[in-house]
């Protein structure tokens, strides 16, 4: 959220005025830019002894991580014990709230805050309770955008809602990733699951572009692909829930797909086999995303309850609505590309 960002900046600036800079030299030979701890010539990072700082204010990413670890330790014992005894609840779809909040989400935090430096706009347009369908663009070879969107809502929204994104069948056939996706609250992309989740008052995230979105080439970046067959509109009409358009800028540059090795994809049964400037050339190292800068915007909710009962049975209406939402998201993308400015800095 924009405001949160500003507060953090001014916080940092005011602290820089108050105290002196650290006297140490960093490993790259430049003077350290961190603020010195009061009563010491060094910052916490370069302090000679490793006594923990009582103020607990996060300065650098490393400090942030250390603070987080400190917070986690207190409840960690009890958490581990519950996990060990199997004493926890999962919902019918397999969402494991405790695991998500305590393990999976914290893993996403450094990526969200420090690596991609994500700016989230319009988070308050998501209702605090009740169902809504989040419709977002899809890009970036692997579905990092879905993960970051979930993180944005879980962390920035006042009621810390969970987004139940629908994912392709392929995800659930994979070992490790499949069960993990389920435990994080994702479900199979089918009408039944989406409709049932909306009936239970959940926030459902869909990416109507599907494989065509994540698997599109670099030259097509930020150009929305066909919105499937409009199934998401039918679902929203049936459930009579509002659609919230979401634009995600930044995922395209995280894994710029400059080529598609079709023959490898065909051999393994994948929908595409991405070639990026680093993958597969650098092996596993090529899996590290580029540190692009992201902007996620949640648009104005579009009500879906003003249509007749059998609106979902009218393909023309479904196509029209699908197209208009696609246009809305495309416009949001252009706007946010401008807001973001440079892709990496």
């Amino acid at each position, binding site marked *: 959220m924009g405001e949160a960002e500003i507060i953090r900046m001014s916080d940092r600036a005011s602290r820089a005025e108050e105290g002196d800079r650290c006297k140490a030299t960093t490993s790259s030979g430049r003077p350290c830019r961190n603020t010195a701890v009061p009563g010491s010539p060094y910052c916490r990072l370069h302090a000679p002894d490793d006594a923990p700082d009582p103020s607990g204010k996060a300065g650098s990413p490393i400090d942030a991580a250390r603070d987080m670890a400190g917070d986690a330790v207190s409840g960690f014992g009890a958490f581990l014990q519950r996990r060990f005894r199997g004493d926890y609840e999962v919902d019918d779809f*397999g969402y494991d709230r405790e695991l998500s909040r305590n393990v999976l989400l914290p893993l996403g935090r450094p990526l969200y805050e420090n690596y991609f430096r994500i700016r989230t706009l319009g988070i308050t347009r998501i209702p605090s309770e009740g169902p809504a369908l989040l419709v977002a663009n899809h890009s970036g070879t692997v579905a990092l955008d879905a993960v970051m969107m979930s993180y944005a809502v879980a962390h920035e929204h006042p009621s810390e809602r969970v987004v139940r994104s629908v994912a392709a069948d392929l995800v659930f056939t994979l070992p490790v990733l499949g069960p993990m996706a389920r435990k994080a609250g994702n479900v*199979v992309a089918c009408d039944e699951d989406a409709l049932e989740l909306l009936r239970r008052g959940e926030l459902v995230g869909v990416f109507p572009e599907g494989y065509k979105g994540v698997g599109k080439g670099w030259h097509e970046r930020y150009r929305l692909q066909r919105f499937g067959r409009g199934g998401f509109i039918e679902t929203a009409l049936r459930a009579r829930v509002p659609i919230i358009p979401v634009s995600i800028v930044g995922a395209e540059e995280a894994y710029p797909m400059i080529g598609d090795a079709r023959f490898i994809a065909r051999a393994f049964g994948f929908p595409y086999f991405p070639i990026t400037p680093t993958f597969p050339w650098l092996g596993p190292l090529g899996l590290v995303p580029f540190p692009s800068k992201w902007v996620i915007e949640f648009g104005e909710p579009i009500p879906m309850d003003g249509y007749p009962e059998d609106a979902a049975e009218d393909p023309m209406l479904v196509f029209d609505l699908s197209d208009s939402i696609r246009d809305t998201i495309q416009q949001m993308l252009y706007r946010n590309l401008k807001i973001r400015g440079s892709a990496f800095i």
Partner: protein
Amino acid sequence: MPDQHPRKVLITGVSHLFGLRLAKRLEADDDVGSVIGVDLQEPAIPMKKLDFVRADIRSPLIARVLESTEVDTIVHTNITSSPRTFGGRSGMKENNVLGTLQLLAAAQRAQRVKKVVMRSSAAVYGSEPGEPSIIPEDHAGKAVHLTGYAKDCAEAETYARDFGRRRPDVELVILRTQNVAGPTVRTSITDYLSLPIVPSALGFDPRLQLLHEEDAVDALYLALTGDQRGIFNIAAEGVVYLSQATRLLRRPELPLVPFTARFAAGLLRRFGIIDFPTDQLKLLLYGRVLDIRRAREQLGFTPRYTTKQTLLDFRDHRSVEDVTGDPSRPTWERDLKRLAAERPTGETV
């Protein structure tokens, strides 16, 4: 269903899991005048109302039984996932598919029959990663390739629907039951979960949904006494992950790579430790969870145990011998068998 008291109920598979427990339940029901139980073995529990008929439902003899006993209700619980009972997979298939075919052919002729309840299985949905997370009855599977037990159930259901079409005056109910567990039953899933070390597939963690044995009997009873027709999913509410289940049962899990898992399952079966059909192994990869809304709304089925409670009941009150336990130890089932042996043999045709 025209009320004709007292009712005469025929139960196939009366000596096994569902049939046995349903027959016992009907003992206390005054609306049911008599129960005719058909099976190959005699039931382990003596029952007052029960007339036992030792017969194979695969033989045309079953038609004569239907005629002579003048039953108005048939409860078909003889479809089984246990190849061992029938000396192998082909015997099991014969029993499941041809047995059902023969029984329904006889039922079609029997004009007095007004109600048929068939126990099918949740296995008909297969276990696929791309299926809905919660499967409703009318979900048309994405060309799921079924084998073994699941195929048997699907074929039996086809015959049942054909029967329903030819005899529209008969109320036909098909119950697709989820894996049954509880303190006194022995099923493939309880065998599996009773292993001292529970093997699982590395990198996979399926959601498990169970059905408590008491709730299973409740469902059969409701289907028998109510006036609904159609197909109903029968399962407990809620799910647990397999990893969670093993922790709840306080048993270590042994993750195997899927290739060796199939091999290990084959070995366990060969040595008779577990009767888990290898065609159901996919369940341990992707799981399968049923939507029970229809049964709740139309049949009035309200399961008393959630999946987790079923597991805990199984853990804390199990009275069936441990699959690897000492066979000389007295158990609930063996006590019953002893009791049954002491009483005079039942009527046979």
